[in-house]
């Protein structure tokens, strides 16, 4: 929905509070008094990371009971951080025509 030119919070609302209201359901979410239909995602980035689907692991709660628990194990042949032995940057020399 963000690609439909809604702001991130509006996009989140359209698939959560807006969708539930269309269905005539009481509001759900981590707010006292609301239905305990919740999603837990890894707290590794900001809300934008959640919207961008950066994390696949999630625990889904419906009516206060865990409905689904999904974990993702991943193996990557890439470093987790950039830790070069020395910050030597080489300049690419573009050969000029003779």
């Amino acid at each position, binding site marked *: 929905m963000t690609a*439909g030119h809604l702001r991130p919070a509006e996009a989140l609302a359209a698939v959560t509070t807006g969708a*539930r209201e269309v269905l005539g359901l009481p509001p759900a979410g981590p707010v006292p008094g609301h239905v305990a239909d919740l999603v837990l995602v890894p707290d590794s980035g900001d809300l934008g990371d959640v919207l961008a*689907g950066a994390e696949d692991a999630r625990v889904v709660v419906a009516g206060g009971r865990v409905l689904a628990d999904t974990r993702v194990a991943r193996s990557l042949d890439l470093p987790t951080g950039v830790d070069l032995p020395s910050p030597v940057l080489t300049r690419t020399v573009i050969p000029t025509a003779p």
Partner: protein
Amino acid sequence: MAVEQFSVGPPDGVAHLAGVALRSLRGVRLPDGTVADLGVADGRVTDGPGAGPGADLDATGWRVLPAAAEPHAHLDKALTGPRVDPGAGNDLVAAIAQWRTILPSIDAADVAARALAAVRRYAARGITAIRTHVDVPLDGDPMRGIDALVALRERLRGRVTLQVCMLAGSDVPDAVHAAAVTRGVDVVGGCPHLAPDPHREVTRALDLAERHGLPVDLHADEQTDVSLPDRELDVVELAEQVLARGLPQRVTASHCVRLGSLPPERLDPVLDLVARAGIGIVTLPITNLYLQGRDATHLAPRGLTAVRRILDRGILLGAGADNLRDPFNPAGAPTRSRRRRCS
């Protein structure tokens, strides 16, 4: 008896929590960025630590959000993608034709099995409530889809909220149309946008809804062409009838793609009417990106309704994914994130 203590653990750990009833979530990050404890009692979130039955769940390192709802699915069609040519490049009319070629071979058990497999995907992605439209087929038992999904709704009660919306085409006889609503459906649907006489189709859906006191959710204006007069828009017809009848129940117009094609001077009066009628709109971007705009050689229309102006006008907006691997979107997925990112 000692209260059970669980910890969510790492994102790449073993999935072990399904079925655990909670009385609290500890150390979880809230949408406002703070870390707090939440209580749970009788299916609702409470202030402060939970004291009733259920387990305490340490959610340190996890962020909590509201679960999503899917306001518009077709569980009777879900996962039939492998039975059709996914490269056919269907527009709406071609998708319906393709669906109708496989429909005669589909029975209630088939509907139930695919619908449950689809619900499992939705649930795993974080969707805890689903409204499904369901066809009333012309071939064979017209009630088999409704009966299968009403039974599934009851089977899943307490875990996933399922709403069943009857979707009878304009070629379904009045007697069958009227009988379908008595099979335990939650919502009256319809597709005036495909009917030779949209006025008649809206009328018979609202007559039925009025008689049974049920909410309404019509497929509306699922086209991009707006060469027709505004009074012939499905959503205008629907809004005028809702106002004329003083219909108190919730009324929803799904798709409303044509609104995205209207210039502001035509759109604004239409949205005023929709707002006065209290109609909510459901946008289904992924399916409409797939189905619409196929006759354009370039600069194809996006197939989106006018989401910005709908929100700015204060009209209720829900967003969904619509089709999950069926002739209307062979690559459809129930993912919250894709629905947000891709439109």
